[in-house]
């Protein structure tokens, strides 16, 4: 039961990540390949504040998300001017840079040794040590993310995002500042990724750079594409399925030295098959142009 709840917590966190990336990739058509970088920034900010300054994780979570959003602004401002492949490469580069900073700036992040003993959340003095109570917290955040994403998508702002995705030139011709919209959606995505990162860190109570590799970013992107580009329910399905699925390998009794590469092989194969057969995903409405 504990185990099942643990899977649900992870699924909830990945739902937040997938939805926030879907805003950027599926709804706006920006191929971002470095989303884990933002959750890395959020997680490390919140953990370092909690460990070094004794700040409450709740405040840390918020500050972490704000810092992640700010780095989204710094990166997004120049990056959104690049087209297609080059945007993908630049965000990919961001993923590698943030990962290598987390790994090499040993003075701040303790590098590959990671940060142990991260305090968990507490609610008005009651520590949320039971896993079901943590699941509740994650579900609340996931619900907030779903709600906010829905509101964004159905707002005039969201319509501009989709118009950028379909035909950026036409939307510029209608007087929309597409660059500003693209930067803004990048910042919003980074904000929620930051939240997901610190939720993960305070749950596992240990982080190291290996949780935020480029492969992690690709996994999140795979969830977006698998579930459906530009589909909110698709993202929930995508995150849920791809979190649950590798756990099945464990039930088949594979040793971890085989299950690890096997899982990645299946992810790689799934990405190829999706690109060949259904690039918009199960419930998607958009394929990369």
């Amino acid at each position, binding site marked *: 039961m504990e185990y099942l709840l643990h899977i649900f917590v992870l699924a909830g966190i990945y739902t937040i990540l997938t939805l926030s990336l879907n805003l950027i990739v599926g709804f706006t058509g920006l*191929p971002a390949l470095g989303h884990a970088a933002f959750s890395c920034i959020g997680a490390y900010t919140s953990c370092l504040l909690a460990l070094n300054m004794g700040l409450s994780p709740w405040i840390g979570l918020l500050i972490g998300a704000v810092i992640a959003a700010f780095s989204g602004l710094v990166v997004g401002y*120049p990056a959104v001017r*690049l*087209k*297609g*492949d*080059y945007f*993908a*490469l*630049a965000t990919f*580069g*961001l993923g*590698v*840079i943030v990962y*290598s*900073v987390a*790994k*090499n700036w040993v003075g701040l992040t303790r590098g590959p040794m990671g940060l142990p003993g991260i305090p968990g959340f507490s609610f008005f003095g009651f520590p949320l040590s039971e896993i079901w109570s943590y699941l509740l917290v994650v579900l609340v955040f996931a619900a907030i993310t779903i709600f906010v994403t829905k509101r964004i998508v159905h707002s005039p702002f969201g319509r501009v995002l989709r118009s950028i995705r379909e035909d950026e030139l036409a939307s510029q011709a209608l007087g929309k500042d597409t660059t500003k919209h693209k930067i803004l959606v990048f910042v919003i995505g980074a904000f929620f990724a930051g939240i997901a990162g610190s939720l993960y860190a305070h749950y596992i109570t240990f982080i190291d750079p290996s949780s935020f590799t*480029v*492969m992690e970013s*690709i996994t999140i*992107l795979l969830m977006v*594409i698998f579930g459906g580009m530009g589909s909110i329910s698709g993202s929930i399905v995508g995150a849920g399925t791809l979190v649950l699925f590798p756990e099945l390998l464990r039930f088949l009794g594979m040793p971890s*030295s*085989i299950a690890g*590469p*096997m899982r*990645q*092989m299946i*992810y*790689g*194969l*799934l*990405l*190829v098959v999706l*690109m*060949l057969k259904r*690039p918009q995903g199960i419930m998607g409405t958009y*394929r*990369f*142009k």
Partner: protein
Amino acid sequence: MFQQLIFNAIISGSIYALIAIGFTVIYKTVKFFHLAHGVVYTAGAYFAYTFLSWLSPQFNNSPAPTAFSFFLPIVLASVVGIGIDRFIYYPLRKQQASNLIFLLASFGVFIFLQNLIQLIYGAQILSIRTGPIKEGHHFLGAVITDVQLTIFFVSVILMLLLWFFIQRTKFGKAIRAVSDDPVAANVVGINPEKVILISFAIGSALAGAAGILISFETNIEPTMGFGALLKGVIASIVGGIGNIPGAVLGGFFLGLVENLGIWKISAGWKDCIAFVILIIFLLVRPWGILGTKTEKETI
């Protein structure tokens, strides 16, 4: 110290340049980022490891099978590249898929094959090197080993051969024609599919050769392709995408900046330095060192 750094920069630069020119030959005809190029490089190294550890001892390490163990992996790497093109890219071309779909599919292939290699050989570090390590030659205040000299000269020979092939042969001309205008090339009777096949064969053979060369210098591991891929792609863009002399220049430039960089800070920052260079170039001079400014339209 400084001379040593320059030598190291030239050695790693020649490997980067070799990966970058293979990547560029493929890019010229297909015009998308073939990210699975990195895993072809890894495959080359592992093929060489397999043949050297299995074939050569059967013949008491006599020179002929050993030479064969170098030649065969290059052919096999080439076959892997052609296979990726035939089974993945060809159907995508039929669907007229966008560049991003190609890019993601090729990354999927990369992940799949890299983990397949890990599943077969295990995640541990392997070494091709046999026998004792010889001391290097002292030259201009730096130490350079036989292996490093081999890497440098073989790379330069391969670069010159490629240059000759592209500029002086009929196939090379066809590659340039398809690169400039695939439709017009088709009109004058060049089969683009055939040209793409040749470019994958040559590009992948070069990646395989780079993988084999580096496996004599350092240890091999399944994840080695990722860093190599990044360096190859970055060198190609920095030099001017689709430009072969540019890719060579980009490779040496990257080797130089990296080695000067880790002189001052730790070696763990290598990938970071490479990407910072890429991002600076994308922002300031996206058409690369040797590219022309008109190509900015596509970026």
